């Protein structure tokens, strides 16, 4: 049986590795050019090669975004870039411009082309058009209900990809130039300044805001699998390592439990709780089950919470001395209940009983980000590279 694909965002090579180790089946990345997150670190050609090597060794895939709205100067140089990228081994391009789709299908038929959400595809007739153009997959607009998605799948038999988690745009993708007008940063060439999260003055005493809550479709995973969605996409190429590890790890568990026929309410609730803790905004199901309304937005300006739960990234574990070595990320202290979680899905909850600095001097608190600390932990569980520690409960 072909399982649904879990597709994760990777702003750089480290994030790519975290995504794949924590359970993503594929990653989508941006190159140094032509992607809609121009200000992420993005991948050089060499990094793309390495990323593809890493992914393919695990039997996983890499997709490259080539989804800007091209101006004349961009489109003149893109063909050479496409040729370089194909050599790196990417499995697909994510594209919105139909000329580019046509060019890739005609010149590199061995590489898949996925129609970007930037095209805001909302109906089956448009998909029929692009199916004739040779696209291999459609990333659907986020303004669709579950019923609309099902109808599209039933009527087109084209592989569909659906966003399941992360930030939402306020306007239709590709139909927004707010950033261009307010900040002169081109929304459709990777420079979006997220103007939809600004607040604006009005003639009355209430500022106008239009920021949307994040999307969270954890509860709809079974439904979406059952209607035939092929790929679940998580948003967030510029998100932190901790966020990605947590979100991908949680969705991995939900999907695997579903296929193992043991996705209980308890399992689902636990993963939803983890997802809510790592979120820096409130979430909603947006369009999947209702016409988006006032409950899917914010009204009191930008509302983002800095996440203090991420305590550290594991460097190594000394089984003999029973010490976990970490790079600290947020303050924690003796008595705090924490959880170490690994890429392969293991979770170890424990109380911080002993804590040491890099010189192995005993401490009460870990207070300096990026400093190295040792935490006492007695466990037989294999602690892999890229494991992390989060706060469960303060002392």
């Amino acid at each position, binding site marked *: 049986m072909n399982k649904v694909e879990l597709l994760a965002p990777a702003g750089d090579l480290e994030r790519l590795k975290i995504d794949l180790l924590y359970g993503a089946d594929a990653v989508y990345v941006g190159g140094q050019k032509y992607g809609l997150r121009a200000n992420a670190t993005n991948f050089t050609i060499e990094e793309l090669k390495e990323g593809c090597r890493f992914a393919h060794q695990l039997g996983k895939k890499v997709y490259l975004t080539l989804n800007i709205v091209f101006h004349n100067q961009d489109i003149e140089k893109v063909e050479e870039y496409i040729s370089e990228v194909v050599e790196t081994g990417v499995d697909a391009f994510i594209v919105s411009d139909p000329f580019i789709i046509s060019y890739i299908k005609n010149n590199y038929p061995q590489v898949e082309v996925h129609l970007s959400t930037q095209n805001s595809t909302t109906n089956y007739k448009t998909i029929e058009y692009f199916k004739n153009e040779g696209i291999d997959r459609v990333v659907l607009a986020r303004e669709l209900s579950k019923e609309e998605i099902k109808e599209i799948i039933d009527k087109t038999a084209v592989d569909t990809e659906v966003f399941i988690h992360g930030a939402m745009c306020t306007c*239709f993708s590709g139909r927004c130039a*707010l950033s261009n007008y307010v900040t002169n940063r081109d929304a459709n060439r990777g420079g979006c300044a997220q103007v939809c999260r600004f607040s*604006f003055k009005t*003639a009355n005493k209430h500022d106008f805001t239009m920021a949307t809550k994040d999307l969270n479709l954890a509860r709809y995973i079974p439904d979406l699998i059952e209607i035939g969605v092929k790929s679940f996409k998580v948003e967030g190429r510029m998100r932190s390592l901790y966020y990605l590890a947590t979100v991908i790890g949680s969705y991995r568990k939900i999907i695997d439990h579903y296929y193992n026929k043991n996705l209980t309410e308890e399992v689902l609730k636990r993963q939803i709780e983890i997802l809510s803790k790592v979120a820096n905004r409130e979430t909603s199901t947006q369009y999947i089950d209702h016409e988006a309304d006032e409950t899917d937005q914010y009204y009191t300006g930008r509302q983002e919470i800095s996440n203090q739960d991420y305590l550290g990234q594991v460097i190594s574990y000394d089984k003999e001395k029973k010490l976990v070595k970490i790079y600290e990320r947020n303050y924690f202290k003796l008595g705090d209940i924490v959880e170490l979680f690994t890429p392969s899905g293991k979770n170890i909850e424990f109380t911080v009983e002993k804590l040491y600095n890099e010189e192995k001097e005993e401490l009460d608190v870990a207070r300096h980000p990026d400093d190295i600390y040792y935490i006492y932990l007695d466990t037989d569980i294999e602690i892999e590279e890229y494991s992390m520690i989060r706060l469960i409960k303060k002392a």
Partner: protein
Amino acid sequence: MKILIKPTKKIDEYQNIDGIILPLKNYSVDYENDYSIAEIRKIKENFSKEIFIVINKMIFNQDIDHLKETLKEIETLQVTGIFFYDLALLKLKEELKLKTDLVWNAPHMTTNYKTCNYYHAKKVKYAYLSNEITLKEVLEIKEKSKIIPMFTLIGYPTVAMSNRHLITNYHKMHNLENNERLEVEEKVTKEKYYLYENEFGTTFKYGKVLNNIEALEKLKHVDFPYLILIEDGIDHSIFLKVLEIVNQNIEKNAPLDEIYHLIGDNTGFLKKETIYKVKKDE
């Protein structure tokens, strides 16, 4: 060079135009007023010049069947063309073997000559170029593309479109009386934006009229095919005066200066390239 207008009043009030743009009821967004097919048919009886119909809303599954019937009915009108956003229309034109020409009208995506040529190869006759490209880019598209380009000379530019009812939501959350329109001001730039809402969602317009008459000499020089003047939001008598001055300039190089007094000097992105890669210290 042809002048198309998007009117807000009766068509016979406009002189010296080559055509009109009529947004179709139930199928258009971003415009103040719209027309049913019956109304367009009536207009056509007394208007011998070019008529373009706008079908630019996002098309959802439930729209497809009715859209098919609508397109067949439009075919009987024998209008000059249909402005379209969603490629469902391109597919339907092919399926239904319709002869009415199409105008590629994705407001922020008609930005390069190669994609214009792609659409031309797909038998799309016209392209309404984006307001967010420079004059240099416009002229390059004219030079290198086989598609017939159109460009906004005058009009409030559309900035964004959302499926959400943002004005209703705002009023509801703050217990304010609802209204279909809202004027907002960006706090740093102090620029105004006009929002208005219909059943399809919310449109954002920039608060200053786009005035691209500075480009007129160069556009005349290359015999640019179509210039568009959008009346929405502009006082009718001012719009008529602007139209008159533009025509006089095209016919006999009359000066354009008065237009600046009438509608300001906002040239949008005509001379200003956007950036998208921010320097690290910004």
